[in-house]
């Protein structure tokens, strides 16, 4: 058994360990005590360089790569190169700029300053949802949609205040909240139980047709609660009893919840039943979220 890869004594390991500890302390000092001054770009270069040195020290001495078979180095180096390639590819993949669908950045005052350089967030393109959990109200920043005070809602789709899909591309959701299409799309999630025409299934799922409008008339907030937090327990609709569970749909975006409710209230017989309908806005959903109810609470607060 040849021991060609571990000549020398333990001294080299001790020296390496002390060296690594010192480098780690320097990194700590650079950040915690700002040895190079606050915000000095040299700091970032130094800590990246230090961590590369630590990385190399560990693989060459602790992992014996320095004196070991070159084949092993080749495998590991290939892995590192691929890892770096993946990283570079991902950076390009997710930072494509676009002039369309860009949503105005939240105001800087509401964010910690370190993130201010990253505000060109392509919310629409990325398709991410950002739930504002009620537990964390302190952190909830002003959402892009809230920066527009005047939502132009209308039940009449021919009304000029609702922009048509073709010209809404450039200013999506900023000038107006175009809920028709979104609402119809989101309703696909509801129709498996409540059915495409809102009739529900007798004995299993309550109807939305007419009933949703009646609930709206009694309490405008109730429908928001039911969708956001769900509803469990026995309810009575038009003389029929239903004992089932509606899941909480709070993970949908504010826009989707507002849109789907507007869609329901303006569909089938609901427009004939609803009184003084004022379309929901994403803001309405956001303020309901803050209540942080359970599906049992929704039942108790049912009008």
């Amino acid at each position: 058994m040849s021991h060609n890869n571990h000549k020398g004594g333990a001294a080299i390991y001790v020296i390496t360990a002390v060296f690594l500890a010192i480098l780690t302390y320097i990194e700590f000092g650079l950040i915690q005590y700002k040895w190079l001054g606050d915000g000095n770009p040299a700091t970032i270069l130094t800590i990246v360089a230090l961590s590369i040195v630590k990385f190399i020290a560990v693989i060459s001495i602790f992992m014996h790569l320095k004196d070991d078979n070159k084949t092993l180095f080749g495998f590991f180096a290939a892995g590192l190169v691929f890892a770096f390639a993946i990283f570079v590819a991902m950076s390009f993949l997710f930072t494509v700029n676009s002039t369309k669908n860009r949503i105005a950045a939240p105001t800087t005052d509401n964010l910690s300053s370190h993130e201010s350089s990253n505000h060109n967030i392509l919310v629409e393109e990325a398709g991410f949802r950002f739930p504002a959990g009620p537990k964390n109200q302190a952190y909830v920043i002003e959402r892009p949609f809230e920066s527009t005070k005047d939502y132009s809602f209308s039940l009449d789709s021919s009304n000029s205040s609702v922009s048509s899909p073709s010209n809404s591309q450039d200013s999506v959701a900023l000038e107006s909240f175009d809920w028709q299409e979104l609402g119809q799309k989101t309703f696909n999630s509801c129709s498996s139980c409540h059915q495409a025409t809102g009739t529900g299934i007798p004995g299993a799922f309550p109807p939305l047709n007419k009933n949703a409008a009646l609930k709206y008339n009694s309490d405008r907030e109730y429908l928001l609660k039911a969708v956001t937090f769900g509803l469990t327990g026995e309810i009575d609709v038009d003389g029929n009893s239903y004992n089932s569970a509606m899941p909480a749909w709070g993970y949908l975006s504010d826009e989707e919840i507002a849109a789907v409710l507007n869609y329901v209230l303006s569909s089938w017989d609901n427009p004939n039943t609803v009184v003084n309908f004022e379309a929901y806005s994403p803001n309405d959903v956001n303020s309901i979220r803050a209540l942080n109810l359970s599906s049992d609470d929704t039942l108790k607060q049912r009008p």
Partner: protein
Amino acid sequence: MSMTSHGYRSSNIKDPKLLMWIFLASDCMFFGSLIGTYLVYRGRSLVGPYPQDLFDIPLTTISTFVLLMSSFLMVMALYYLRKNKIQSFRLATFGVIIFGSIFLGFQVFEFSHFAHEGLTLQQNLFGSSFYVLTGTHGIHVAIGVLWLISLLITSYIRPMTSKDEVYLDVAALYWHFVDIVWIVIFTVVYLIEFI
């Protein structure tokens, strides 16, 4: 190098060691994509908590130090085994297990603190990318701890000699790899937030 198997060998590298290095190369890509994901999503969370609200640099520096020193003890354990100093090998291996467990303890403390502050896996992009990255690393550390415990127990149930070194060598390579991944995470995830 003893050749126990039949057939042609192009090198004298022991199989477990070769396989471990290939595995580590693939693990590089795994962590490369997780770190890449973290960096791509960095600063894109629209709701908090944000990294600067949560990270505790002195605490993380200590856990980084603990992991580095565990790597030192690891290389010493291998050194002693090669010298056939079994008691010293056991002591060093035990030290690695303890230091690795301390590191895991810090991580459990950190995760529960963050969760208490409102950072859950689903809270924002920071939460999901941070927990997946550091959680995957933590699982690696935990596997390493279990592996070393099994080697330590083995040393008590049958005589361990320098012939066993390849098994310890492979475990040590894994352990050092977990350490270098943390060197990168410490810089790229934690320190960079405070520049």
